[in-house]
C-alpha cells in the first residue's frame, strides 16, 4: 500500500491542555457523583448508585485524562503542501481529509484562555462548504500556517 500519510504532528503541549480538559470534566463529574452519594445515603437509595458514583469518575479520569488524550495526540497528523492540505486524525475512526488549496476560502486561528496560556491556537480552514480544524498548534506555527495557507489559497471564483 502506497500510503502517503501526512507527517506533521500537532504541538506536544496539546497533551497538557487536553489532560486539563479531562480534569475539568472529571471535576464536574465528581461534584455530581458526590452529590449522588450524599443523596443516596440520606434517602437510602440502592447501593449500586454509590458504587457507580465512585467508579464512573475514576474510569473517566483514566480514559479522558490518560488514555484518550495521548492516543488522540499520537493519531493527529497534518501536512500543508503547495496545493493541498491533508489531515488525519481519530482514535477509533481514523479520518483522512484532503482539501485542495484552490478550494480554501479563508483561514482563521483562534484560542481560548486555556490555549492562550499554553501558547497554543486552533486553526480553522474553511472551504465553501466545509470547515476543517487543526487543534492546538503552537501559536507561531499556527500564525505561519494561517498566513501561508491564505497566500497559497487562490480560490478560482467560478468553481465555488
Amino acid at each position: 500500500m502506497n500510503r502517503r500519510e501526512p507527517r506533521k504532528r500537532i504541538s506536544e503541549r496539546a497533551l497538557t491542555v487536553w489532560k486539563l480538559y479531562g480534569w475539568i470534566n472529571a471535576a464536574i463529574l465528581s461534584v455530581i457523583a458526590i452529590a449522588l452519594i450524599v443523596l443516596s445515603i440520606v434517602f437510602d437509595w440502592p447501593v449500586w448508585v454509590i458504587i457507580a458514583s465512585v467508579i464512573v469518575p475514576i474510569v473517566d479520569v483514566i480514559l479522558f485524562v490518560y488514555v484518550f488524550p495521548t492516543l488522540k495526540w499520537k493519531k493527529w497528523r497534518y501536512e500543508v503542501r503547495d496545493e493541498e492540505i491533508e489531515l488525519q486524525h481519530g482514535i477509533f475512526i481514523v479520518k483522512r481529509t484532503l482539501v485542495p488549496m484552490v478550494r480554501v476560502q479563508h483561514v482563521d486561528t483562534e484560542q481560548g484562555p486555556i490555549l492562550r496560556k499554553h501558547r497554543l491556537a486552533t486553526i480553522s480552514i474553511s472551504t465553501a462548504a466545509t470547515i476543517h480544524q487543526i487543534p492546538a498548534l503552537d501559536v507561531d506555527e499556527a500564525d505561519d500556517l494561517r498566513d501561508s495557507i491564505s497566500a497559497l489559497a487562490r480560490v478560482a471564483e467560478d468553481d465555488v
Partner: protein
Amino acid sequence: MSEQKRLHPISTIINFIKHLKDAVIPLVILLFLNRGEQDSFWAYLPLISLGVVLLVVLGAGILKWLRFTYRLEQEELRIEYGLFVKKKRYIPFERIQSLNYSEGIFHRPFNLVKIKVETAGSSSSMESEAELTAITKEEANELNRIIAQAKKRLKEKGTGSNLEIDTDDFDGAEGLGVIEEEAPQEKILYRMSIKDLLVMATTSGGAGVVISGVLIFLLQFGDLIPIEAVIDELVEVVQAGLVLAVILVFIGLVIAWIIAVAMTLLRYADFTVKLVEKDLIITRGLLEKRQTTIPLNRIQGIRFNQNIVREPLKYITVTIESAGGSALEKDSNTISLLPMIRTADVNGILEEILPEYEWSMEFKGAPKRSIFRYMFWNLLFISLVIAPVSYFFYPFGLLTLLLYPMIAIFSWLQYKTAGYRISGDQLTMRYRGIVRHTVFMKKKRIQSLELKETWFQKKGRLATLSATIKSYIAGSTSTVPHLEVEDVEKVLEWYRPEGQKITEKKKQLSTISTIVE
C-alpha cells in the same frame, strides 16, 4: 429606469397577510379567550385588542410599502427601505446571479410578480439579497433586460482585466447577458405530464404521511381498549377491532392520497424546465406560480434520488446541487430539476443541459466481504428496538422479529447499491440511506474528500469514502461506506491536485515552513 419606484400597492396586503400568518397563534388564543360574560368590558377586551393588532399590522404594511423604493442607478440596483431607520441596499449588477419570479394568488389578477434577487452569495447571503414583493410584469422584464445588458457590457469591458483563469465552457456571466438584437434562445427541455404528477403524488412522502397516520390511529385505538377487556375478551375485541381498523385505514389511505395529489398539484403543476442561453429556468405551481433561474455555471453537482417504491416503477427524481440560492427561500432550494421522470428519459435531457458530464451507471462496488458490515450495524441497531419490544409486549412484541429479515434484505440492498466511478474529472458515487442516491460531481466542484476507517474496517481492509460539494449556503456530503481501502485511496489520489502528484518526490521535504516566501 433610474427614477425611484414604489412597489405595487397590493404589496401592503401581501405584507399584511404575511405578518398575520406570523401572529396567527396569539390571535387564535385571543379569539378563544373571548368567552366570558357578555356584558362586562373584559369580555370585549380580547376583541378590541384583536382589532388593535390587526390595525397595527395593516398600518405597518402600508408604511413599509410607502418607505420602500427601488431604482436602477450607476449599474446598481438600489433599494431603500426601513420603517424608522432608513436602510439602503445597493447591489451591483455584476453581483446579481439571477432574478427569480413568483406569482401568488394576489399577484395574478393584477399581472404582477414577486422578484427575488439572487446574488453570487457568500455565506452571508442573507445580507446581500433582496426581494421586490410586487411589481408589474413589464417592469420586471424591463429590470431583467437592463440588468442583463449592463452585465454584458461590464463583461465586455472587463474581459482583459478579468482574473478568470479557468477556461470552462460555462464561464462567468456572459451567459446571462441577453443579446440585444436577437431574442434569447429558448429551449423547452422537459414538461411534466399529469401521469407523472400522479405517480409522484402516489409514491411521494405522502406514503410516509399515510403510514404515520395509520400508526397514530392505531395508537389512539390502542388507548380505547381497556386492558381488562383485552384480557377477558381478547379474541372478540381483536376481531372487531381488525375489521374497524381495516376500514378506517382504507379510508385514511384514500384521504391521504387525495391530499398528497392536491399538494403535489399545487407545487408542481405546469412544471417546465427551459434552457435559455446558459440559464436553466424552472417554472411551476398552480395557484402560486414560481420561476427559478439557475445559471449553469453555478451547478455543483447532480443528484438522483429514488425511493424504494419508485425503484421498481423506474421513476427517479433529479435534483441540482447549486451554489446559488438563498437562505430565505428554502422552498426553491429543495426544488428538483426533474421531480419525477422515467429512468430511460433522464440521460437525454441531462446531456442537453450538462454535456460535459457522464451519466454512466456502472460502478465499482463494495467487496463481498463488506456485506457482513452492512448487515451488522443495521441488525444491531434494530435489535435495540426488537429486544425491549419483544420483552415488554410479549407475545405480540415477538412480531417485531419479522424486522430482522426485512433489515437483512435492506442491508443487502445497501451493499448492492454502494459504489463509485471515476471517469476523467468526474466522480460518481452511489449509496443508499433509505432512498437510493446517485451523485455526479466534477473534481473542481468537490470541496473536500475524506477517507474514513474504523478499527473494524481496518481489520477488513475497508474504508468509507465521503465527498462534500457546496449546496446552497451549506455543503452536501455523499458517503459510500465499506469500500475496498485501495479503491478509496485511488479516489483520494485522483482528487489530489495535479501539481502535488507529479512533484511529490521532489518536494518530499517541502513542508509548510519552506513554502512561506
